[in-house]
């Protein structure tokens, strides 16, 4: 309970009476967990087909250039090479793809727009042959000036990254090198600013983060006898891929049959296509199965990254600590192709002031077209960059007002009913102040925790085993942050999912089979869907059918939406199956017991029981050899687009809130940081699988830590070429960099959602980064307006 005694929300409702073993709320274990830990899990890169060829992509070596000529002769003449294809070999008039705007060439046409753009593809009988043949393709470039930032993109004489745009954003953007612009205006920020006793301004920079999933892009395309193709692929959304692939191949969608193969992480980086079309093209051209696997170097060019951003903020507050207004401008670098940029702009703008009550706001977010690497979806999706900036602002403003930083946030925290800058009311529990209270109340890790009887334990110090300090120069800092993330696809998108559930008796036991096209990318959907089926159908045995396109779309495994939406679809399909089963029961046994007609009936423990607990029949008897199967689509509440001028509109479905407290030790002389604890409190509505929930929170927290202190793709500002496409120089946290992450899970039901649940995966990625930055600022007294922060920023040697 918060201090004012108001209820935080309502408890969660569970449809089916007593919990079934292995049902929702239990920490059942992942079916793939042991396989992954022991190295036996088959990832997409492990696939093999007899007689298969290997595909290789030739990528541009420059960021922006006209292609003068491509000579494939020598490559084609290489023994072992079966096909070399360029733009000219594409089979139909559809030569581009894209999530929303089809602006991305399957193979470069006349021009390359970023470093590492696919120019030609090769199939050969050995990966090394393919690689060498690709290297023999001669591409002559005539280099063009590179667009690398807002100034160069919107200069009067700027070269256009895309000429002749026809997409639906071109009408409202101020410059053709701007993909999308979303202003959000509510109240009158200028007028409100006059009431402010304190105003703080800040300019922030967010570096380019990579998803750095460990399983590189890979897949296997097998040509079929009917002229179609079977594609086995690691992706986040099979049907979205399908809609983009089929037209390029000139095939109807039912002839491109896709099956999900083992996915080694995604984090947004598999929303866009990578090698899918290339593998299919080569397979159809050669008539042989074609496998493509990127190596780590290529993977850095093979998927979009998190948008780097420049953020300009002004916050005001009265003497008593109430926010008066916020003005902000968020400039996201979308790179060469649109990818998810428009939706990222929508998130960054609509969530741009964070989980606070502010009536007068003036927000603008834009995404640029540049010649930098394309950027798109990544865990947190636009809300991450904004959170980094507004939380830095909240600290600054609290200091100006002279209030405790956490209390200042709590005073301004949104609650259920608060209006977002878009005018949309938050119509489910919003325990922002409570999360902050909880995270602050957690016990602090002991001071000087590195000291032991045998001297300093360097593993507990900045620098770790590199032995840079035994305590010298080390200062502790503590920082707090909180964030808000939308759950599900917003802005009027028809965000549905499909589930097919079948119940039958196998060997005398009732078994449920759940078939969806949901991409399991490690988030735990396969675990949760089985739990839902057990709860709703009262069976123990549930089989999760492999995900493929033989069932309707499940939507994307992104936006923290799969447990909500595909989980909702599974629940819905199970309920329909349950109704059918009960109908069968009534037909068969209704005359034997009046309760069939009068009582509320449940499925529990493989039996039909009354809500009073009386057993009416076993499911095996009810089904009597028949199977009951239902396939149904399920939708969450509809949303609306944001008004293009005012940004007003009920654009979001649901919100997810997390708060962090970071405790760091900073070696202030060397500028090295050891995050020793990142405590998190998060509201999850209902934890369908508490262990998975904690895992998601710890993972998201760690990914946020990564971009606070080390993760950044460095792009040369002169050439727009990527400088560190390897795990040698793109660093992600190791276990020695990962702190203790105590997690306090709050479960306040969102009555609009299945079981009251909230999407979990992204919110912890938001507040983790600004909490770490705040803690480093606290330790060093430095302003630190960019992330990630590097040793040179902490030592005045940048």
């Amino acid at each position: 309970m918060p201090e004012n005694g108001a209820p935080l929300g309502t408890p969660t409702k569970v449809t089916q009476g007593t919990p079934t073993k292995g049902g929702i709320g239990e920490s059942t274990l992942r079916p793939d967990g042991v396989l992954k830990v022991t190295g036996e899990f088959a990832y997409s890169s492990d696939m093999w087909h007899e007689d298969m060829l290997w595909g290789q992509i030739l990528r541009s070596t420059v960021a922006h250039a006209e292609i003068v000529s491509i000579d494939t002769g020598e490559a084609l003449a290489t023994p072992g090479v079966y096909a070399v294809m360029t733009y000219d070999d594409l089979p139909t008039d559809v030569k581009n793809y894209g999530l929303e705007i089809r602006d991305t060439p399957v193979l470069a046409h006349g021009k390359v727009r970023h470093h590492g753009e696919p120019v030609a593809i090769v199939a050969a009988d050995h990966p090394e042959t393919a690689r060498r043949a690709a290297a023999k393709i001669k591409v002559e470039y005539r280099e063009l000036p590179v667009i690398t930032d807002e100034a160069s993109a919107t200069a009067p004489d700027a070269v256009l990254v895309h000429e002749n745009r026809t997409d639906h954003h071109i009408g409202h953007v101020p410059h053709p090198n701007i993909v999308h612009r979303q202003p959000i205006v509510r109240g009158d920020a200028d007028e409100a600013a006059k009431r402010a006793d304190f105003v703080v301004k800040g300019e922030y920079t967010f570096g380019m983060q990579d998803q750095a999933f460990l399983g590189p892009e890979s897949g296997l395309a097998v040509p079929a006898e009917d002229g179609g193709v079977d594609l086995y692929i690691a992706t986040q959304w099979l049907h979205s891929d399908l809609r983009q692939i089929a037209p390029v191949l000139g095939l109807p969608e039912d002839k491109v049959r896709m099956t999900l193969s083992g996915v080694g992480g995604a984090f947004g980086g598999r929303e866009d296509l990578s090698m899918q079309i290339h593998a299919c093209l080569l397979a159809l051209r050669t008539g042989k199965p074609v496998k493509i696997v990127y190596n780590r170097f290529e993977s850095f060019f093979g998927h979009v990254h998190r948008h780097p951003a420049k953020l300009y903020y002004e916050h005001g507050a009265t003497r008593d600590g109430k926010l008066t207004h916020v003005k902000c401008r968020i400039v996201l670098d979308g790179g060469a192709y649109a990818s998810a940029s428009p939706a990222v702009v929508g998130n960054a703008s609509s969530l741009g002031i964070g989980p606070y009550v502010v009536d007068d706001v003036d927000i603008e977010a834009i995404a640029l077209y540049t010649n930098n690497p394309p950027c798109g979806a990544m865990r947190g999706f636009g809300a991450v960059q904004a959170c980094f900036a507004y939380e830095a602002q909240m600290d600054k403003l609290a200091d100006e007002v002279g209030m405790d930083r956490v209390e200042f946030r709590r005073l301004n925290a949104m609650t259920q009913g608060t209006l977002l800058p878009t005018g949309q009311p938050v119509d489910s529990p919003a325990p922002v102040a409570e999360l902050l209270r909880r995270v602050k109340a957690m016990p602090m890790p002991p001071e000087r925790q590195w000291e032991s009887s045998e001297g300093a334990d360097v593993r507990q110090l900045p620098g770790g085993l590199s032995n840079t300090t035994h305590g010298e120069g080390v200062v502790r800092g503590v920082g707090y942050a909180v964030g808000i993330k939308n759950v599900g696809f917003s802005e009027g998108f028809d965000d549905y999912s499909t589930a097919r559930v079948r119940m039958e008796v196998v060997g005398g036991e009732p078994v449920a089979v759940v078939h969806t096209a949901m991409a399991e990318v490690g988030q735990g959907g396969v675990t949760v869907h089985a739990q839902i089926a057990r709860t709703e159908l009262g069976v123990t045995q549930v089989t999760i059918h492999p995900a493929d396109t033989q069932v309707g779309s499940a939507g994307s495994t992104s936006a923290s939406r799969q447990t909500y939406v595909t989980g909702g679809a599974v629940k819905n399909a199970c309920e329909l199956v349950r109704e059918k089963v009960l109908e069968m029961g009534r037909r068969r046994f209704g005359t034997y017991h009046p309760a069939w007609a009068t009582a509320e009936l449940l499925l529990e423990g493989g039996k039909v029981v009354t809500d009073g607990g009386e057993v009416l029949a076993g499911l095996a008897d009810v089904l009597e050899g028949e199977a009951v199967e239902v396939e149904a689509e399920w939708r969450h509440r509809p949303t609306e687009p944001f008004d293009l001028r005012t940004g007003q509109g009920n654009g979001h479905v649901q919100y997810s809130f997390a708060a962090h407290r970071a405790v760091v030790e900073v070696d202030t002389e060397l500028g090295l940081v050891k995050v020793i604890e990142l405590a998190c409190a998060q509201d999850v509505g209902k934890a369908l699988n508490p262990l998975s929930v904690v895992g998601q929170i710890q993972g998201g927290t760690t990914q946020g830590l990564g971009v606070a202190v080390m993760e950044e793709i460095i792009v040369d500002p002169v050439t727009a070429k990527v400088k560190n496409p390897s795990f040698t120089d793109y660093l992600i946290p190791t276990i020695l960099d990962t702190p203790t992450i105590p997690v306090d899970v709050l479960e306040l039901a969102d009555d609009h959602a299945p079981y009251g649940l909230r999407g979990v995966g992204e919110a912890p990625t938001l507040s983790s980064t600004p909490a770490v930055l705040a803690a480093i600022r606290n330790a060093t007294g430095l302003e630190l307006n960019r992330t990630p922060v590097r040793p040179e920023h902490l030592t005045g040697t940048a």
Partner: protein
Amino acid sequence: MDFLRPASWEEALAAKAAHPTAVPIAGGTDVMVEINFDHRRPEFLLDLNRIGDLCEWEVGEDSVRLGASVPYTGIMENLRGELPGLALASHTVASPQIRNRGGVGGNLGTASPAGDAHPALLAAGAEVEAESVRGSRLIPIDEFYTGVKRNALAADELIRAVHIKKADGPQQFSKVGTRNAMVIAVCAFGLALHPETRTVRTGIGSAAPTPVRAKAAEEFLNAALDEGGFWDNGKIITPSVAQQFAELCSAACNPIDDVRGTASYRRHAVGVMARRTLTWSWESYRGTAARTEGAA
């Protein structure tokens, strides 16, 4: 690419003489990365893994003869007493898996300024045992690094072992990376006290085109320690001496700006590491000296 697999050291020398462009490979830490990234396509790879001698070490009177392929894990586990600086440096090499395969011979062969072993070898004092069909020679470590990723080996020579002076005093090693484990050095520093000769030696990594010693800093410190009778009286080194030593170590750097760090940061960090490692080593020396006196 031809893969040569000599069964003995003599065969390896013969192969290297026959194919001077052959690239030796043992743990593969550096070589495999270069091949995977297509930075290098050697005509011949010379696999040294069948030559068991290279994985052996002998502890002699004054020095350790460390086989070129003795893995870093072996150094950490077995030679901590004799080679404390190198053992500390070994601890910072990559990941446990790589430490199980990689050895000092690879670091020397690649001669990258970022090799973790170099500062420790420079500080301890070492000689590289190079051999060819023409014969064997010992190359002093100070003369071994000749340029960026270049060393004093002749085209037909292979590294058989490194002779490293056994520690006669405390040694330290520090390395800065932007992550707390498994990271390539932004810069590194090795320091060894040599009470027998009353000298201090240093080694700097990743802050110049080659691994280097901070000779002016060493000379300054040797003189200061000598002048104040520090080796005998075991007094605390004054902060001003430590500071000047640190500044001279910074001055010995000739770093570049790159994706891992700025030149300015590298100079700064080397100075901080120099001051800290000197303090730790000297404290340890004083402690040992005090105990020895007490016992006597």
